[in-house]
């Protein structure tokens, strides 16, 4: 007898496996592609963002010089004198100077006034790039006379033309050009503080540089020969630091800009990744059903001698192949979508973004897509190995031992590891990526639990008294192989994204408009000289407006904290005081009582100083944290050159959300009354018309006084928020589309089952209409319960954000939530019905025949 007649060690024929995978996929291709299309949009989002990132990186590297406009820029908030002036004047081969500050500008033709940022310039700055103006030559020509270039939003607002004039302080300037973009400034910033360039030789004439005006001094240098910037900056850094000045080089600007947009693209790619993960969960559940349908085929192959590993590989090859196709499709789509991103971000980015195909981004996207589709498909695929050939004799429908396979833990671990590693690549922090991964897991869990709870409650609510159609529609959510949970998670997640966005936006806007309504102050006048104090107040009253608050403001610096100075801080790194604390110029006030928006958290408030003793001051809690200040700590202030010993008598919590004057340090009465100071006045204007007239009167009489109109701020803020929310909505669209794809796929997957049910119902006498109603109700339940899940979580999430992050009172805007709820529910019903159409329209017999 031949006992060695069997060759147990038959080598696996890889080519044959591919052949089988190809053959087996023939009848399932459209379905397989439908599974995998769930990842297409996630990949598209990532490829688009990566391409954007690489393009921005290139642009930053190429355009950094034009962003800063010089080889070296030094800036500070104090006038320079003494040895510092000597240093400042000795640097560079070519020098320019700029002073910038906020001031009112007045357009005589339209009588319009607005707070603008004045930049007084001397020299040939920018040395790289240009001040972009229309006409082009205006950007340099304005320095030759009493001329100005004015930001385009301002020109538009006041309907001004080149050739008109603009009044800054006491001086009238001829508008010689429209400013399209100041060096290094983005559109969003320009909207908040529109820039007006004037020549520096006329600055003194404007009469705007008085006490209290916060001026920033900038110095720009060009080097004709290349110098070692590193060595130079190392040398000047300590001197500048002591003077509270900062420097920037092309290299450092490159880094900081790169970092900022790196953060943006990190955030965006994580949002895209969430969409991808969502799609992957969809892929996993679709493959699960696919494998179940393949049990019979796998059993036959096993009977014919196919090894378990070979059967597994055949289906793995299919998934890899289709994952590759899905990823390539996603990459192509993403490369196309990339063209939209510059439009989306053009207001936030201070340079022109180029759009180029990034092979790096495409490669990364495809690799990511293949890896992640394999990882998630592995979960159901490993059970292929456990299919017994016995199933050919008796299709036992025994649950394939997926739940018991120990390998599944390995796959879970791999998925977790992959997510952590991927997020690490984005965030560069293990802790951060661990939190992100846990966060995702918890978010999915919360979604799943809420979804499950809602269906539970629904189950209890629906009892025998409901009509058959409703009960049947609901029961359909529980059909075997259902994907109810994954659908609820994905639709719920998309709903949640959109909903939180609406909520936060309305909370922020609501907050600002609340504080400007009624009799609360909505206009702030500042830089009022002490001598103008009474005149401004009486002018305000004469216009019929209330003087809600009039506060003196003194500017000062901190010289010592607990006996330590800035110089000590430099030498001893163990001192726990943040760097800027000594360099910063503080605007403080003095009064005898606390305001409504303040609350003492530690120590006691002292309203009056005793002469000859240290001054008891109250410190705002954030400053206390930065300077590591406790009650009783000694501080020495420098008030315009005069040393003033003080101690912390209390620490305050300030509600910055309210529009009123808030201060980091509040002095008691009795010490600062004679210090150089200026005044701030708060009033309430009832309408835009009154506001315009009042501003004109103030600017005419007191050109140095600046006015913040909160109505304007509000509209600018609103515009900015809607731009940001547009970006977020754009990103969340990817997970919404993914949700829809998963929905379509799952309807398709259960089609055969639905056909049989529908035929059965129709043979039992149900009308076409009734079946349609059952199907519609099923999707209505699905859509509405998912939407409700998302909205509930959004309410919870935005409540947490409002309470702990913004510290604002919480209000739910129910209307957008209702609209969203209805939209999602109806959309789900429409998609469900469109997909089931084929089932509903055919006569039963035809269906039985074609599916036999």
């Amino acid at each position, binding site marked *: 007898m031949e006992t060695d007649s069997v*060759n147990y060690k038959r080598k696996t024929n890889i080519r044959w496996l591919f052949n089988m995978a190809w053959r087996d996929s023939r009848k399932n291709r459209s379905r397989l592609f439908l599974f995998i299309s769930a990842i297409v949009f996630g990949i598209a989002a990532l490829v688009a963002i990566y391409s954007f990132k690489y393009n921005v990186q290139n642009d930053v590297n190429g355009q950094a010089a034009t962003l800063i406009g010089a080889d070296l820029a030094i800036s500070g908030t104090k006038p320079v004198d003494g040895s510092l002036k000597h240093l400042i004047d000795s640097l560079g081969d070519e020098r320019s100077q700029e002073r910038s500050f906020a001031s009112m500008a007045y357009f005589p033709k339209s009588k319009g006034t607005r707070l603008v940022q004045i930049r007084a310039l001397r020299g040939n700055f920018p040395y790289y790039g240009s001040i972009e103006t229309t006409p082009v030559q205006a950007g340099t020509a304005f320095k030759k006379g009493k001329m100005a270039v004015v930001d385009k939003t301002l020109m538009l607002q006041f309907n001004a033309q080149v050739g008109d004039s603009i009044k800054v302080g006491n001086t009238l300037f001829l508008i010689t050009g429209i400013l399209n973009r100041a060096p290094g400034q983005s559109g969003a910033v320009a909207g908040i503080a529109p820039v007006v360039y004037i020549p520096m030789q006329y600055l003194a004439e404007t009469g705007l540089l008085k006490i209290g005006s916060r001026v920033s001094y900038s110095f720009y240098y060009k080097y004709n020969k290349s110098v070692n910037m590193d060595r130079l900056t190392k040398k000047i850094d300590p001197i500048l630091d002591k003077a509270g000045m900062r420097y920037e080089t092309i290299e450092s600007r490159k880094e900081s800009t790169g970092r900022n947009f790196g953060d943006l693209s990190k955030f965006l790619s994580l949002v895209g990744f969430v969409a991808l993960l969502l799609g992957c969960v969809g892929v996993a559940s679709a493959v699960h059903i696919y494998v179940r349908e393949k049990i019979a085929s796998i059993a036959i192959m096993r009977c014919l001698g196919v090894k378990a590993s070979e059967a597994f590989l055949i289906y793995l090859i299919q998934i890899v192949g289709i994952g590759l196709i899905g990823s390539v499709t996603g990459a192509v789509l993403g490369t196309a979508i990339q063209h939209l991103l510059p439009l989306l971000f053009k207001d936030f980015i201070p340079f022109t973004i180029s759009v180029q195909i990034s092979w790096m981004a495409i490669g990364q996207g495809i690799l990511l897509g293949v890896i992640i589709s394999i990882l998630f498909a592995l979960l159901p695929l490993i059970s292929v190995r456990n299919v017994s050939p016995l199933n050919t004799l008796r299709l036992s429908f025994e649950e394939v031992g997926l739940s018991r396979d120990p390998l599944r833990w390995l796959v879970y671990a791999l998925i977790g590891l992959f997510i952590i590693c991927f997020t690490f690549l984005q965030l560069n922090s293990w802790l951060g990526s661990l939190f992100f991964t846990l966060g995702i897991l918890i978010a999915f869990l919360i979604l799943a639990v809420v979804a499950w709870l809602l269906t539970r409650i629904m189950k209890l609510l629906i009892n025998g008294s409901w009509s058959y159609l409703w009960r049947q529609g609901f029961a359909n959510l529980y059909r075997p192989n259902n994907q109810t949970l994954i659908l609820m998670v994905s639709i719920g997640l998309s709903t949640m994204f959109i909903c939180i966005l609406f909520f936060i936006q309305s909370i922020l806007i609501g907050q600002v408009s609340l504080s400007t309504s009624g009799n609360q102050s909505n206009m702030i006048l500042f830089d009022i000289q002490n001598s103008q104090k009474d005149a401004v107040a009486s002018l305000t009253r004469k216009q019929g407006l209330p003087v809600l608050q009039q506060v003196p403001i003194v500017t000062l610096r901190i010289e010592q904290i607990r006996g330590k100075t800035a110089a000590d801080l430099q030498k001893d790194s163990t001192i726990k005081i943040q760097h800027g604390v000594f360099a910063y110029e503080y605007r403080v006030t003095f009064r005898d009582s606390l305001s409504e928006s303040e609350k003492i958290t530690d120590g006691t408030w002292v309203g009056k100083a005793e002469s000859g003793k240290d001054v008891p001051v109250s410190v705002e809690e954030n400053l206390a944290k930065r300077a590591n200040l406790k009650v009783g700590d000694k501080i020495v202030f420098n008030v315009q050159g005069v040393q003033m010993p003080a101690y912390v008598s209390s620490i305050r919590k300030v509600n910055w959300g309210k529009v009123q004057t808030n201060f980091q340090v509040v002095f008691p009465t009795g010490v600062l009354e004679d210090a150089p100071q200026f005044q701030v006045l708060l009033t309430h204007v009832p309408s835009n018309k009154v506001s315009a007239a009042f501003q004109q009167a103030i600017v005419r009489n007191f050109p140095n006084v600046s006015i913040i109109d909160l109505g304007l701020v509000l509209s600018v803020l609103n515009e900015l928020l809607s731009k940001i929310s547009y970006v977020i909505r754009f990103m969340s669209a990817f997970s919404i589309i993914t949700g829809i794809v998963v929905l379509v796929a799952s309807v398709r997957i259960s089609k055969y089952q639905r056909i049989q049910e529908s035929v059965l119902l129709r043979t039992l006498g149900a009308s076409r209409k009734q079946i349609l109603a059952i199907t519609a109700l099923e999707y209505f339940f699905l859509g509405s319960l998912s939407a409700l899940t998302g909205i509930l979580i959004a309410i919870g999430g935005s409540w947490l954000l409002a309470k702990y992050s913004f510290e604002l009172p919480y209000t739910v805007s129910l209307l957008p939530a209702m609209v969203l709820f209805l939209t999602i529910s109806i959309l789900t019903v429409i998609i469900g019905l469109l997909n089931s159409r084929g089932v509903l329209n055919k006569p039963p017999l035809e269906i039985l025949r074609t599916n036999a």
Partner: protein
Amino acid sequence: METILNISDLSKTYQSAGRMLTVLNNINFAVTTGSTNAIVGPSGSGKTTLLGLCAGLDRSSSGSVELNGINLGNLTEDQRAQVRNQHVGFIFQNFQLLPTLTALENVMVPLELRNEKNIRSRALDLLDKVGLADRGHHYPSQLSGGEQQRVSLARAFSNAPKILFADEPTGNLDAETSEKVVKLIFDLNKEAGTTLILVTHDLELAAKTQRIIRIKGGQLIADEKTING
């Protein structure tokens, strides 16, 4: 006379809902190479279970199955798959063709697994033998039940098996088609000299073999030669 299949003290029990269910109880028999055998018994008597054990599709609870001198109990599932691929052919009541493969491809699979040569022409020859040479490119769903069973016959003989297991091969076919298929089974079997184990509850069909093994309630109750034996 050589023995191709040797069953000794074979038992199979299932554990379901905490209860032990003995489906096969202490079965003993041996089959000589090239013979034709029928296993008959009422529905639920354990025929299919016995066939599954003989063909190495399942593990016994006790006792041994020796196929072509190999004790299947000592092999892993993958090793048994190799035994099946190289020595065993199958015919099932519900045909069990791979639905996503054409008739021709279905016949080719066992040959491809063995990495043989001229696979396509040999598969076509086999299809020709069962009278379906011109239906090779059709999918199972495009074939009638009888045609499907003939394809499955071609597939079963494609690897020149030493032993062929057939579980109720005519169970899903009408009388006329059955007759054709049965004739084919016996003709091909004779031509290839294959050992045949035929499970059926159809006594008329069983009578065409050389030996009838009767089981009832999981026990072997009779084992006798027919007039052909």
